[in-house]
């Protein structure tokens, strides 16, 4: 993992001092609320429906056991003893005291954590693949580049007051697990025919009110040119992005208005001025960044015998076998696996973890996974480097701690935003809907048999729950002051990223579980042996689902 040096620490301390001063001036009435607003947002602080909310960055999802333990302490001391993992791999506190926030930032800094630009109209936390560095389909490990871009974006003097928020995601694998095509900038690491490392650059994707799949504007950008190229995109956006209407201010609107070709051309023209500047990465800097993400001390293991042991354990224990299939993933190194900890047991808000659970994850990371863990876009956590021969023991401990629900990637691994229970922008609640669906599908064997299925819930059009790219997406809408839910089908966050299609008129909260059941029934009745839900949907289209869901009772 990246380690802070004197420079990183100095910059972060200066930021905390700056924010402490701003908070004091705000509390003393010397800084107007509307002027304080973007300043506090750029330090992760929202003022929500019930209490302030603080969003803590987990840069590209990497977190170590020391940080997890300190977070546990922070949730106890400053909050109600739990936190929430978000779809941008961040961690949120929902009950801090406003005036405590500078102290919380100081505590976070002790373990090299922060809330820098986790919100506001600036470059946000960089997100990436939770299996970076360990996945078999990796082309290039994205994490060194994530860190380089993290540093470039933090406290960038030119881009702190953009028209709107700005999200960058990076993947280095064949399979895109970072949903890069629904980000303001999506970067895909690639190798040229000559073996050089570079980026495919996508721009103008996004969810929210106007969901758009990003446009490819550069087929191959040599790695050393990444910072000036990003700077060129941001400068064009800062100058030309709309500022008259908050809902038309994202870069996707600009890219659409100009057309991707014209936008790309403007970027290239701007880039011409910058491409020989000091922002070109040096070989030493790329090497320095890579030096933080070297392999942990893996043992040389006999994969076949480790696998034989696991298979034997699985043959004896169905529950373990299911968990293996759903929550354990192949690793690049023989004898190792990656394990996803489900933060989605029924009855717990998706992504919530208690202080004690954070400490348990820290302990398990220390014992089984070189002291590191990761957060995921699907609001779960990962231990990336577990020996196969440890899996059975780990599973037993995960079961005790409530992390072993064998539902990763399945219907009950629901992605949901905090929604109306916490968020002041919400049209409707999302957490109780998630729970009602989990209760409807409480038969583990049945859910297991349904296979891969992404169900995403957002409490309003801002789409923090990524409902457009769920195979099944649920959106909270407001109808004359009452909470209703619109259902869409067929979205995808994968390489063939696509947006879901609305099924029809919305439903009351109590109808939702049954509607989902009908949709699932259509799938189960029509699927072929190899088909996952999304395949059947793509073959059949919306119609059969629509007919079933809206059929009049006869």
């Amino acid at each position, binding site marked *: 993992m990246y380690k802070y040096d004197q420079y990183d620490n100095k910059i972060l301390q200066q930021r905390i001092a700056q924010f402490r001063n701003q908070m004091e001036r705000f509390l003393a009435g010397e800084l107007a609320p509307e002027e304080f607003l973007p300043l506090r947002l750029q330090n992760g602080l929202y003022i929500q429906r019930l209490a302030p909310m603080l969003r803590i960055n987990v840069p590209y999802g990497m977190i170590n056991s020391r940080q997890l333990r300190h977070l546990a302490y922070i949730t106890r001391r400053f909050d109600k003893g739990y936190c929430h993992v978000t779809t941008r791999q961040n961690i949120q506190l929902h009950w801090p005291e406003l005036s405590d926030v500078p102290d919380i930032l100081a505590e976070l800094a002790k373990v090299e954590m922060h809330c820098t630009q986790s919100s506001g109209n600036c470059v946000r936390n960089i997100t990436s693949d939770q299996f970076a560095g360990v996945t078999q389909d990796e082309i290039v490990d994205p994490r060194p580049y994530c860190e380089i871009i993290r540093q470039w974006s933090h406290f960038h*003097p030119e881009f702190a*007051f953009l028209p709107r928020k700005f999200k960058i995601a990076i993947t280095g694998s064949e399979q895109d697990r970072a949903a890069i095509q629904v980000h303001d900038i999506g970067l895909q690491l690639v190798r040229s025919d000559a073996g050089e490392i570079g980026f495919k650059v996508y721009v103008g994707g996004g969810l929210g009110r106007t969901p758009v799949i990003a446009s490819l504007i550069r087929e191959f950008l040599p790695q050393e040119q990444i910072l000036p190229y990003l700077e060129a995109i941001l400068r064009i956006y800062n*100058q030309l992005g709309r500022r008259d209407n908050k809902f038309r201010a994202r870069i996707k609107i600009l890219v659409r208005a100009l057309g991707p070709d014209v936008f790309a051309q403007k970027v290239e023209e701007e880039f011409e001025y910058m491409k020989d500047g000091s922002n070109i*990465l*040096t070989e030493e800097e790329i090497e320095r960044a890579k030096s933080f993400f070297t392999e942990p001390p893996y043992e040389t293991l006999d994969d076949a015998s480790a696998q034989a042991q696991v298979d034997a354990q699985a043959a004896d224990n169905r529950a373990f076998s299911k968990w293996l299939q759903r929550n354990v993933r192949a690793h690049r190194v023989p004898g190792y696996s990656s394990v996803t900890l489900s933060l989605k047991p029924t009855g717990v808000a998706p992504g919530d973890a208690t202080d004690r659970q954070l400490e348990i994850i820290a302990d398990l990371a220390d014992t089984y996974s070189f002291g590191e863990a990761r957060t995921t876009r699907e609001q779960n956590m990962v231990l990336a480097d577990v020996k196969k021969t440890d899996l059975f023991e780990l599973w037993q401990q995960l079961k005790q701690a409530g992390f072993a629900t064998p539902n990763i990637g399945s219907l009950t691994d629901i992605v949901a935003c905090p929604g109306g229970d916490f968020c002041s922008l919400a049209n409707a609640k999302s957490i109780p809907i998630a729970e009602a669906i989990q209760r409807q599908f409480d038969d583990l064997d049945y859910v297991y048999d349904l296979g891969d299925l992404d169900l995403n819930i957002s409490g309003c059009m801002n789409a923090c729950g990524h409902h457009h790219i769920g195979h099944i997406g649920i959106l909270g809408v407001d109808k004359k002051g009452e909470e209703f839910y619109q259902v869409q089908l067929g979205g995808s966050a994968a390489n063939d990223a696509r947006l879901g299609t609305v099924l029809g008129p919305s439903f009351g909260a109590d109808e939702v579980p049954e509607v989902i059941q009908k949709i699932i029934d259509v799938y189960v009745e029509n699927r072929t042996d190899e088909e996952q839900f999304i395949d059947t949907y793509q073959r059949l289209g919306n119609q059969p689902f629509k007919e079933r869901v809206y059929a009049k009772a006869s």
Partner: protein
Amino acid sequence: MPKLVKDGAIVDNEWTLMAKPEDAPEAVEVPAGQVIVPLSVWQAQQEKLQTRNDIGVWLNSDEAPEALQDAVQKLPLIALHFPLFSDGRPFSSARLLRDRYGFKGELRAVGHVIRDQMCYLRRCGVNAFDFGDQDINLEEAVKSLDDFTEYYQASHDQPLPLFRRRVS
């Protein structure tokens, strides 16, 4: 005389900021003395105004610095106007004026600029801050110029990014 922050010090504001004219810009009379005129007046009366050495020009946030063309080399002062502090376009304008068009004179932020933007604006090349009639304690505000003294990125004040300067 009203005060402003310039090059880190609190000094008299010797320039008058001329509002955008309601009439045709070629018709307005630019008074004697140090005056910062709106871009439209500059463009309409450039021939006359460029003979004076006490004329500056202000750009609104939606006016790009390209509009000044070669005048950038000669003007003693350019002001960047914030209609609203959260309108971040002047940050890019400042960098373009300094780094691309080579502006050497006084680069002044005017309008609804706030103290908490001073450090970043200084980094982008702004060296003077006129808070207008906002109620601001300048002695306190000036401290914000150095909210940060170390930076990751290259910018106008520090042309080398940290990665080219880092010593471990």
